Every structure is written in C-alpha cells, then in structure tokens.
C-alpha cells in the first residue's frame, strides 16, 4: 500500500479524532451554551464545568487512549500475537495490587501533589516490570513466548493477591478496591493529564524511534536479525518504554482494558501494517476511541457514572471473540505475518 492510498484513511482518522476532541467536551447531562464557557466570576458555573471537569476529562481519556493503543500496537508486533494488549504482561495487575495495598493501609499521603494511591499503583506496576525483566532474562534472551507466558502467570498471581487483599479487608475497603479496578476517568483539573503526559510522550517517542524495527519484528526474529535489527535490544527498549507508559496511565486511571486491543486492529484494517502509518493512526484513533467511550459512560445514565473500563470491556469482549474466530490468514494479516 503506497503513501497515496494511506493518506485518505489517515486523514479520516485525524478528522475523527478532531471531531471527538471538539464535540465531546460539550456532551453531558448539563447543557452548556457556547458563549457561557467564556464567562468569569460568580456566574461561571458553566465555564467551571467545561474547563475544570469536561475538558480535563476528555483530554485525560485522549492521552490515556493514545498510550494504551500504541502499547497494544507494539505488543502485538513484539509478541507476534494479535490478541496481545497492554495488560497481557500483568503491568495493570501490578498497579492494581499496589493500589489495593494503599487502600488497605488506609493512611492518605501526598508527594509533590501526587496522591498516595497513584504513587502506590505506579510502584506496583514498576515492581512487576522489574520482576518480569528478571524472569525473562533467565536462560538468556527475551523470547516473546517466555515474556508472554510469564506475564500471564504474573497477572494471574497478582489478581489472586488482589482478591486475597479484598477478602482480608473490611467491607468499605473492599468496595473501594472494586471501584478502582474497574477503571475510571473522573478527574478534576489538569493535574492527572500532566501526570500521565510525560510517560505517554516518552513512550511514543521511543516507539517512533523504532518504527523500522517494528516493521521487521512481526516477520520473525531470524528475518529481523538478517536485516540488521538487534532484536534483544529493541525488544528490551520497547518493553520498558511501553510498560512505563502503561504504568503511568494505570496509576491515574486504573486498569482500562481492551483499548489496546481494539484500536490497533481497526487501524490496521484502515491503514495497513506499515508502522510508519499505523502508529500515528493508532495514536489518534485510540485517543478518540477512549474519549468517545468515556463520554458515553458519563452521559448515558442520569446521576450515575459507569466506569469507563466496564464500557470498553463490553465492547472489547465481543471484539476479542470476533478476532479469535477470524480465519488464520486474515488474523495473521492483521499483524503483518506472511
């Protein structure tokens, strides 16, 4: 697929993202007129809702969606598995375990304005990454299969630890843990966006620097090596960058699943498997997709908010099954395998 044939779909994706970013902040249970958002002073509730609640929330969803979908794109190439997504390696479970420990501990604290919950969740994610690194280095090399299986095992173990923590805690803490692991984007102000942005930007830059390698890796380690790719080093860098990105996002928003699965696959159908085009498309579409689902989650039921992770899971489950039952040529074509 040459550049001329990729530009129109990329343009459509960009237009879609722009439309979502432009329209989503205006959508909600309270009508806000266009002129009202510029009012200041005592009569500025509409402005406050728009600038302090809706816009930060849409931006947070967009940034988180960008990061999760790019991470999914990378994992699907790294592991040569179309069903891989950001939570495959247990990073989200590690963050959830860290958050659970904080909630049971029960003493709120702040460090440089960042809440203890986010810090503990991030710490849990980082410990998981280090542990997986150490596991994967055993017996030399970071093979995709070994990483994937280790990640699944770690994810299952951490999930059982979270259940154990819930069992040992009292009713109130149990409810708080349950709410957190459903994921949510109920932010006030721009601090959560600023907290996630460094991780997402760093991850995106590292991934962008390795686009040529990402085009080679799905074809096999031998093929990539034959074309001069240092497979182990590239894999290590991408693994660290994307795990940090996921850790930073989950620490703020909790685990939001399936975005990293759905967005890259839809973009592959539009754009193809060349990561030079796939990456910007995935970035934009993933961000817009999560912003759109969050808009639905916060608007559809009066006086109640569905956690966005519930909505993405409701979409992602059927999508996952649809992928699973695709015929093999189509499935592998979606990840660039010959």
């Amino acid at each position, binding site marked *: 697929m040459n550049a001329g044939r990729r530009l129109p*779909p990329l343009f*459509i994706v960009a237009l879609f993202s722009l439309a979502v970013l432009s329209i989503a902040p205006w959508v909600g249970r*309270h*009508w806000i007129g266009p002129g009202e958002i510029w009012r200041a002073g005592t009569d500025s509730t509409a402005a406050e809702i728009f600038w302090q*609640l809706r816009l930060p929330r849409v931006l947070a969803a967009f940034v988180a969606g960008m990061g999760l979908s790019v991470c999914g794109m990378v994992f699907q190439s790294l592991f040569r598995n179309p069903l891989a997504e950001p939570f495959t390696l247990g990073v989200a479970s590690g963050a959830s375990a860290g958050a659970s420990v904080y909630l049971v501990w*029960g003493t*709120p604290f702040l460090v440089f304005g960042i809440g203890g919950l986010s810090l503990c969740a991030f710490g849990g994610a980082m410990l998981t990454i280090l542990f997986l690194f150490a596991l994967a280095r055993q017996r030399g090399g970071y093979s995709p299969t070994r990483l994937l299986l280790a990640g699944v095992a770690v994810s299952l173990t951490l999930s059982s630890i979270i259940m154990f923590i819930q069992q040992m805690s009292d009713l*109130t803490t149990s409810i708080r843990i349950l709410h957190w692991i459903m994921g949510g984007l109920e932010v006030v102000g721009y601090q959560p966006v600023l907290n996630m942005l460094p991780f997402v930007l760093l991850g995106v830059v590292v991934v962008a620097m390795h686009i040529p390698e990402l085009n080679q890796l799905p074809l096999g380690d031998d093929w990539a090596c034959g074309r001069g790719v240092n497979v182990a080093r590239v894999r290590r860098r991408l693994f660290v960058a994307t795990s940090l990105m996921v850790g930073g996002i989950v620490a703020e928003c909790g685990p939001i699943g399936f975005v990293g699965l759905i967005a890259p696959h839809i973009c592959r159908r539009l754009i193809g498997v060349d990561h030079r085009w796939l990456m910007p498309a995935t970035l934009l579409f993933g961000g817009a997709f999560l912003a*759109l689902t969050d808009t639905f989650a916060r608007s559809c039921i*009066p006086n109640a908010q569905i956690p966005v992770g519930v909505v993405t899971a409701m979409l992602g489950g059927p999508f996952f099954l649809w992928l699973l039952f695709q015929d093999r040529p189509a499935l592998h074509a979606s990840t660039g395998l010959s």
Partner: protein
Amino acid sequence: MRRLKRWRAPLGLFFAVAAAIGVVYGALRWYGGLSPVRAKPSDLPLTAAAGAPSRIVSLAPSLTEILFAVDAGGQVIGVTRYCAFPPETKERISVGGMTDTDYETLLSLHPDLVVLRSNLLQESQRQKCAQLKLPVCVVSDDTVEGILSAIAALGEQSGHVEKATLLIADLRRRMEQLRQSVPAQRRPRVLLIVGRTVGLSSLKEVYAVGPNNYLDEVLTLAGGSNALESDAPAFPRLGPEDIVRLNPDVIVDLFSPEAVQGVSAKVIAQDWRQLPNVQAVSSGQIHVVIASYAVIPGPRFILLAEDLARLMRQNSYSPAEADAP
C-alpha cells in the same frame, strides 16, 4: 471498489457510534434529562439563621438524616441517590452516589456547603471538592460519640444549634435509659451481620460487625457483647467455619429494606439452619431487623439500640440455661 470495501467496516463503526451518541443525547434532551447549568431558584422555605448556608448538598445518607433532624432540611438542595429518609429527600436533586459523585450536577446547584464523611470511602470526594473550591464540612460518624459530634457540627454549620443541642440531649437520655435497663447477668455474645446473600438457604458473603465502629457500640449500649474478637477488622467477611468457631449466643441480621427486596424475615432467618450446632441457632436466638435505620450511622441509631435491647430481652435469653450441661 476494493478500496471502498476496506473502509466499509471502520466507517460503518464510526457512523454507528456517532449515531448512537446522537440518539442518546437527543433522548436525554427530549425527556428533560439534561438540566440547565444554572439551577432553578430554590422554592424551598428557608429556615436558616442569617449567614447560615442555604444551599447544602449532602454526600452521605447519614448526614442527610442529621440535617433534617436538626430542622435544616429546608436548606438541603442536593442529596445522594441512596438518601431515602426522611421522605422529603425524594424531592431533592440527586448528585449521584457516595463514591461516584456527579460533579457537574453538584456544581450546577451552586452549593454554599457540601457535607461529607471523613472516612476513606469519600477521600476522593474530599479532594475533588477541595479542587473545585467548594466549602465543605467533613464529619466523622464512625462511633456513637462521632454521630453526636456530627449532629453538633452540622447543627452549628446550618444555623440550628439549639435544635441540635436538644436532639443530642434527647439521644443521651435514651442512651442512659438503655444502659440502666441492661440486666446485671453476663451479656450475651452477639454476632451482628450487616450483609449477606439472602433467601438461598445458604450462607454466602457474610459480613459481620467487628469492634471499633458505631454498630459495635450500639450493641454494647443495648446490652450485648460482640462475639468477634477485639482485633478483628471493622466489617470482616466470615465463612461458616468462623461462625461455628465463634459460636455466638445470639445472631442478628441487619438489613435495609432495599437489600432484601421483599424477602421476609422468616425466610431470611431460615438460612441459618445450615449451622444447627451454633448456640444461637439451636436456642432459636436468630433475629432479623429490616429497617431503613439498621445500617445508617445517623441519629436513628438509638432506634436500632432499642430494637436490639428489646430482642435480647423478649426471648428471655438466659446465660445460666445456655451454660448448663
């Protein structure tokens, strides 16, 4: 043509999602689910003293009850969807739940006071209200003294100090009456249950009342002693083996009416037949309290205490008989 086919699914998805959003949005607008950001002027009678807040939003059912009990109900304009007592709360605007607060609705009400609890369940709400620069009153109602302090605090904040003082005095009088009426013999060991599945003829997801919370204190006030050890968590989850090991003299199930959804107290009590060797089951000391005040740490805690005292006395519990071989 092949190019169009490639775009068909994604474009179809895009338009389907956009159409769904449009339909939902349109439906909400059509049925009036969307409210203007500017709240309508309140037509509630203002009973507050000059300078007292007139647009109070309560983020906890217990605090809503306290506000109405101190005659500040006319100043309450927003409550949670779980606030059901007194019936007048149904006329107030809902701002969501206790943990999933709808901040847009909250802001649109222009509150001059937001009241919430100090426990960890509402930590996020406290932080977000502070970020939105909303005036808040945070109270702790985790103990009986905490509830009385909360009544005093909310009475002062709402400009109803006198009413709050009278209410506290009445509650203390009734508490003292209960203490005086407790029999001198050994207090029965009571297992208070605050949550479990009901009507399945089995005991699942049983959450009991541990020490160091207001329900434990209410039990003590009523003349019972908690069957759980002093180092247990506040609301631990128990399995059947734990209950057999504890072997309480009395078991009391506490439910709100919504939690049991029409299942009768008799059917609920029959679930305990699964454990026939427990002292409370074999001696018929299973009681079920289904009341809106059963698990809310508000001013009606005294009703629960009086109910528990009556239940423990009415079935003539006698430790001497229970201890006999």
